[in-house]
């Protein structure tokens, strides 16, 4: 023993720490190799796409690269009046180059995002530019269409000069940078996204609440029934879970439509008149009903797994000590289920906030969520950078909820099973 140096040595004289590390290295490598496939999988399918999305959402290099000379010459322009001849000239040459490379279509799409009306004037310019004479491009371009003489359009081009932009994010919350560079809201009648965000939060909140209210008694029943009944009930809870999401949503469409089963039943028992059937489809009601049903198992399962561990003798103890059944429930049972409630609510809320298929099919116009808007921009307008921006905003929202939740309840208190 070498107590003088303070280091403990093994019998062979190697310091204990070194020896321990050596002994554990093999295990560490083994452990790492075992998780490596998953790590790689996550990197490729999760981290990398999110990083790519982030880049895409702020990336604005396309126009920057397409009009290099124009932006260079615009640096001296103050943007108050029409730009000088120099700008027009470089724009003409940049544009001609794009036409040669057949990339002018992309430019027109991009500029059209910034300001409506670019598409047609660029098309016109392309046709007329073949016959342009050398020199005095300002006059010639302005003669193509009167919008080319409008300073607004040149300012719009100038706004696309930076390689990175926050414009997509601003658009996601119905704001934009106006001509003076100030961030302002769009006109009230064009604020679509804010409504969608609020509606998404509202629907997610109420779906979570409905799920909680319905799942709590079921989970309690599941946890307290004798095995042979609880297994059957558990299968009833899980059966929808095993059915395809599309099938379930489609069956809700059959049930809830105006000539559907539920409406027929209401008419039959005389609750509503035959010619006045309520609309339960293609609006918020449809979204609420279908999403609550589909997300219910995600609330039942964490609640059940927590309730299963609560000994029935605790409730009995509460009662034998003089608590009424309600007091025993509220003071003893309920606090013990909070970890399950937290897990279930968090799970359902996060799933609901990004839900896509169900609102797309049953939501109609008033029941669609932000994810449907993202899909719309992915598939129809092909504005991927805007879709990415909104996707990231959604992700940030979920993380924020998680953070708030952690502050309130504590993530350690979550119990998923």
């Amino acid at each position, binding site marked *: 023993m070498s107590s003088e140096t303070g280091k403990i040595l093994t019998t062979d004289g190697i310091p204990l720490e070194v020896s321990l590390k050596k002994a554990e290295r093999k295990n560490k490598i083994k452990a790492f190799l075992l998780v490596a496939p998953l790590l790689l999988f996550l990197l490729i399918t999760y981290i990398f796409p999110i990083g790519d999305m982030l880049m895409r959402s702020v990336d604005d290099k396309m126009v920057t690269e397409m009009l290099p000379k124009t932006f260079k010459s615009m640096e001296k322009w103050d943007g108050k009046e029409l730009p000088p001849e120099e700008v027009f000239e470089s724009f003409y040459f940049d544009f001609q180059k794009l036409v040669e490379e057949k990339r002018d279509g992309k430019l027109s799409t991009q500029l059209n995002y910034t300001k409506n009306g670019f598409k047609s004037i660029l098309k016109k310019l392309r046709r007329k530019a073949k016959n342009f004479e050398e020199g005095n491009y300002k006059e010639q371009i302005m003669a193509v269409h009167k919008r080319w003489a409008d300073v607004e359009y040149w300012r719009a081009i100038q706004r696309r000069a930076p390689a990175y932009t926050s414009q997509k994010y601003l658009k996601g919350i119905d704001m934009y940078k106006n001509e003076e560079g100030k961030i302002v809201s769009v006109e009230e009648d064009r604020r679509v996204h804010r409504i969608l965000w609020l509606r998404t939060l509202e629907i997610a909140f109420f779906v979570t609440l409905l799920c909680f209210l319905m799942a709590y008694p079921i989970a309690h029943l599941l946890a307290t029934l004798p095995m042979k009944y609880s297994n059957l009930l558990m299968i009833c809870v899980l059966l929808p879970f095993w059915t395809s999401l599309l099938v379930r949503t489609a069956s809700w469409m059959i049930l809830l439509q105006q000539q559907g089963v539920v409406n027929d039943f209401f008419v039959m028992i005389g609750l509503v008149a035959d010619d006045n059937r309520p609309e339960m489809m293609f609006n918020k009601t449809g979204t609420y009903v279908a999403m609550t049903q589909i997300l219910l198992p995600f609330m039942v399962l964490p609640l059940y797994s927590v309730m299963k561990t609560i000994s029935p003798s605790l409730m*009995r103890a509460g009662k034998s000590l003089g608590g009424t059944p309600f007091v025993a429930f509220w003071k003893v049972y309920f606090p013990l289920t909070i970890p399950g409630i937290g897990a279930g609510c968090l799970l359902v809320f996060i799933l609901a906030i990004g839900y896509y298929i169900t609102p797309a099919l049953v939501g109609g116009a008033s029941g669609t969520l932000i994810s449907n808007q993202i899909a719309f921009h992915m598939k129809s307008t092909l504005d991927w950078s805007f879709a990415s921006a909104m996707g990231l905003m959604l992700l940030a929202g979920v993380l924020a909820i998680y953070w708030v939740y952690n502050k309130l309840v504590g993530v350690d208190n979550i119990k998923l099973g």
Partner: protein
Amino acid sequence: MSKNLDFVKFDKVDKSYDGKVLVVKDLNLDIAEGEFITMLGPSGSGKTTCLMMLAGFETPTNGEIYLDKNPISNIPPHKRGIGMVFQNYALFPHMTVYENLAFPLKVRKFQKDEIDKKVDKALSMVSLSGFEHRMPGQLSGGQQQRVAVARSLVFDPQLVLMDEPLGALDKNLRESMQYEIKHIHESIGVTVVYVTHDQSEALTMSNRIAVFNDGKVQQLSSPDKLYEEPVNSFVAEFIGENNTFAGQVTNMSGKACKVKLNDGTEIIANPISVKSNGDKTTVSLRPERALINTKEKMDNNFKGKIEEVIYHGDHTRVRLDLLGNKEFILKVPNSSANMDIKMGNQINVSWNSHDARALDPK
């Protein structure tokens, strides 16, 4: 103080869960005020069901239970005012020790300072003062047990039920807790109904023991009587160790009878539940009542062969082949006089006929 002799009264109580099998059959039991009574029996004998009916978590299928002369079948558990200690303690895991003890007081709307006083008193009774702010999870099994006991007593109930409270503790702790609970009972004079399947626990703690089997009380008496004078062969078997001989009564003569064993030998026994000649019987004899090589004059003297010797420190257990019973057990104190006990030796065994109780046949 005149004691209420039927403070708790089970009056012809039946209990069935499925309508086919009676778990408790025609139970009649009076429990006096301040008594420590134990319900002892194997699992499934109905003892816990009786306790649950008393606590109000089960209702009698037939009959009535009276608490201080009032029928209680229709009173819900929380209005009965009965303290209860559960098998797994049932402490509320999300409350501190203080909050656990304050729970029954808070629901009874006691003032804050009164609650503090009572909690203090209850905790000092189980010597856990200073543990108020611990969570149950931070306590050892024995400490949790004591908190559970304190909680069941903190609101001054007249009756406390304990459902195998020491079952989860290790042997040493269990023994010290037995004394502790016994002392608490003696010092505050509360009536205790205690359920256990551990006979030594029942014998050390109780004033009276009710031995349950098959839904019926087999014998209700003080621990010493239960051990010394079992009234049937189930009780004799269940309480303590027991040597048995099966046979037939041949000669009844008042305080003694002759029993002819299956191998033809006749022994003299004390007739307890046999009435006449020809009755089949099981003769029960406690191991410590049979002596070897004794000089005392006894009326049963036989020779047996030593089959096994097991050393137990303070005594030695000897298994004999005696009168056709190969499981005859003797307890021999470790003294120099008994050094010749060796396997295979023949020894003389004697006992008094008074200690050999002729009970019902098994």
